[in-house]
């Protein structure tokens, strides 16, 4: 951790977004994580993504549970809402928050322990509900805060700093989400922001549950020779299958793409994601084929990254339930609360 404050000084020619803010305005406090932690890089990517999307800080809600990963919302967008919940319970707290106010943009930051061990039940049900949120897993394969025991995402054969290699089958967040019917599934790497920033932007603008599983090396407990979640290993077995460019609403697609390789997908707000297939065998809109492709590459020891699956057809939680758009806090009390007489009438229907 650092004791030096990040100086308030900034580059005099720093870019400003449509709100007149600079990326520096989207920062939080200085990280207290280990120097070189992948999570800090993910934080920087989130800052960049939110800045470029012109999100008003007070319209953002940062949700988290417990763990190194769950500390990170303190390090971005200080001016937003936030809730640091109980271990593994971030999805249900977010469900509650979203139920009360669907106009906020929800970003949940969790880890492999928080989401795949103690909170795995919460995680799968948030997907089932198709809760409208960007769900980031900062995935490093170990429990960093308790000094480096293997987590549920550790690969078979991965070596710890001390002790025996992992023998248990890992839970792969991406395959799990795909099997459960998540509607936006991506995997990135903290060391590749060029890919990660648009993946987070797409996830923030997607209507429904958007998972971004980010390989985010633990520089202290899992960055050694023999680890399968180190910077070096990740770079070596990196398999980039689909790049995604995020194009905001009302902007033309300006980049030049080769015929047949680009696939624009329109999101609900009119923005677009242009998928650039790097591996021509991959089709990110077919759940069945994606599943096979991903499993084959897991078995080959490759780390498949990019926007791996997208489905803009399925309705998110509020639309499934027919909820109103207005936040409950702004809804007149007399409408929110029908009164004793009405309640009795409703109850009588079930007698």
């Amino acid at each position, binding site marked *: 951790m650092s004791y030096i404050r*990040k100086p308030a*000084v*900034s580059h*005099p020619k720093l870019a400003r977004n449509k709100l007149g803010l600079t990326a520096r305005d989207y920062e939080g406090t200085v990280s207290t994580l280990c*120097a070189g932690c992948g999570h*800090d890089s993910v*934080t920087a990517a989130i800052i960049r993504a939110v800045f470029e999307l012109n999100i008003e800080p007070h319209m953002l809600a940062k949700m988290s549970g417990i763990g190194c990963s769950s500390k990170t919302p303190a390090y971005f967008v200080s001016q937003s809402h936030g809730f640091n919940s109980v271990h593994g319970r971030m999805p249900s707290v977010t469900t509650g928050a979203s139920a009360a106010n669907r106009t906020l943009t929800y970003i949940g930051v969790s880890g492999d322990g928080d989401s795949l061990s103690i909170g795995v039940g919460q995680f799968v049900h948030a997907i089932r509900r198709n809760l409208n949120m960007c769900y980031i897993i900062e995935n490093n394969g170990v429990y960093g805060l308790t000094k480096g025991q293997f987590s549920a995402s550790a690969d078979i054969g991965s070596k710890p700093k001390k002790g025996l290699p992992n023998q248990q089958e890992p839970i792969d967040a991406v395959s799990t989400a795909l099997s459960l019917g998540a509607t936006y599934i991506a995997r990135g790497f903290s*060391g590749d922001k060029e890919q990660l920033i648009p993946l987070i932007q797409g996830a923030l603008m997607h209507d429904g549950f958007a998972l971004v599983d980010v390989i985010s090396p633990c520089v202290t407990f899992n960055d050694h020779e023999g680890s399968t979640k180190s910077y070096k290993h990740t*770079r070596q077995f990196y398999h980039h299958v689909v790049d995604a460019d995020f194009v905001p609403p009302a902007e033309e697609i300006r980049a030049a793409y080769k015929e047949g390789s680009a696939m624009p997908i329109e999101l609900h707000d009119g923005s677009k994601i242009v998928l650039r297939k790097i591996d021509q065998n991959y089709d990110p809109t077919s759940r069945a084929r994606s599943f096979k492709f991903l499993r084959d590459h897991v078995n080959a020891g490759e780390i498949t990254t990019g926007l791996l699956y997208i489905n803009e057809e399925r309705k998110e939680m509020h639309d499934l339930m027919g909820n109103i758009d207005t936040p409950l806090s702004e809804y007149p009390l007399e409408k929110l609360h029908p009164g004793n007489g009405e309640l009795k009438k409703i109850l009588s229907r079930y007698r």
Partner: protein
Amino acid sequence: MKPTDTSNPDYFHKVVDCQWACPAHTDVPEYIRLIAQGRFSDAYIENRKSNVFPGILGRVCDRPCEPACRRRRVEDTPVAICRLKRVAADHRDDIRDRLPQAASRNNGKRVALIGAGCASLTVANDLRPLGYEITIFEALDATGGLMRSNIPRFRLPPKVLDEEIDYILDMGVDLKLNHRIDSMRELLDEGFDAVFVGTGAPRGKNLEIPGRYDSDNIHIGIEWLESVAFDHIDSIGKNVLIIGVGNTAMDCCRTSLRLGANDVKVMARKPRGFFKASDWELEDAEEENVEILVNHSPKNFLIEKGKLVGMTFELMEYKIDEAGRIDRGTVTGEKVIPCDDVILAIGQDNAFPWIERDIGIEFNEWECPIVDEETMMCGRDGVFFGGDSAFGPKNIIWAVAHGHEAAISIHKYCQNESLQDRLPVGVNLASQKMGMHEWSYSNDYDPAARRLMPHVDLKERFKKLDIEVELGFTIEQTIQEVERCLNCDIQTVFAAKLCIECDACIDICPVNCLTITENGDEADLRARLSAPAENHDQALYVSDDLPHTSRVMVKDEDLCVHCGLCAERCPTGAWDMQKSTVLIPYATDEAADEQLQPAAPAA
């Protein structure tokens, strides 16, 4: 781009913008840190090593360091470097036992220095410790050259001047005052082993327009200032016009106000932005209600009944092109401005009527001697030049720099060594990491604005000619100002082989000066860094290929505030903060040990 060659001492030296810009290469950040620690004597000695006259320069230096200061690019105003130098001088203890000592016995070589100004004094300062016998010939009745004759006492008190000059003369120098050299040939015949010319640029430019010689009330700036300095002139008319807007003009107008003038106008031929005077000298003059009239080109003097009554000016209009160049201007009218006295301050020329033209010393079309810029020797072996006399009017700090180089050359010449075979400039790097999160320097960016110099009250200051206007920084101001220094000499040093490309340094850098990217040529790289790298005067620091991806780390040196966060957040120590000490060789460094035998301290 190729990996940056940081073994070239100039690379890290250039990052220390102030030190690089200083002709004498004073280690500015180092002495500012010493002041911050309250070590004023140490700060003074650090200064004196390179610039010899810290008390004088702390008041009247032309400060090439300040426009260069990185702080000026990060925000608006540079660190008040010059003012801090004065703090070190004002608060020093008795440092006489730390000054260079004359050698215990002379080496039998005699060196003549012509002119007792800053260039000659620097040569004496550097050569006495090596045992050279020094004779200084000075035409006037006092030492100091233009520092005494041209800089008014309200800017530079004689006490300050005397103290620092005496430090040098006390080493044992044969000083011959009121001894004008009228013939170089005769001097050379006296058998000195080397001769150094430090006579300045003593001829004020004249303005040959009608009426010039019809009145005694038309003065040449530097001559007039000299007469005031030596009490030959003690009054001037009520209405004074100063022609020219250089630093001499500023001294003339402010001196006039102290000799009885109550309306002083500085007449500028060109608009603002094209003045030669330093910004702070303009500010100080305007604070004293001197009016600066722009676009007035002198046409003639108006004389009535043998008395100067005014001047006629042509009113000018200029066009300035996109590159900021000004044209010759067109005349749009005429205007008469009444006055009692006129002072001409339109520049100085070199003049060497006393150097014969057939003794091997060559001159160019501007009457400047042809002098080697490295060795300071002219066409005649054993004759050296420095200060304004070498390459035309510059300033004190350049004269000091020339003096140091000339001293090395004189030593080598007298020892029959090659003048070109000089010690190279070196650089030393030392890590400043003290512990897990501890650095040896104050690296927190202090957003405080530049402190302003307190001045003597506007009424009080005109009562006498020698009331020093600037009071010097208070302790509170000093404490604030030292923290504004960015410690540019604490360098960010990168070891590519240790980098794991985690991006921690890039994410934390407050001024976006770091990028990891594919290599390319410079123009290409500059276009795709984390923030625009548009200042081409500032280098890109390009690493070797990084081990994981073969990309490169690129640092734009332009706006780095040397906060050390990149090194603080680096998990592998690939970034380190290392203090660069630029090693500038002086004459004593060139000398063998046996040539340096200081006299035993007096019992």
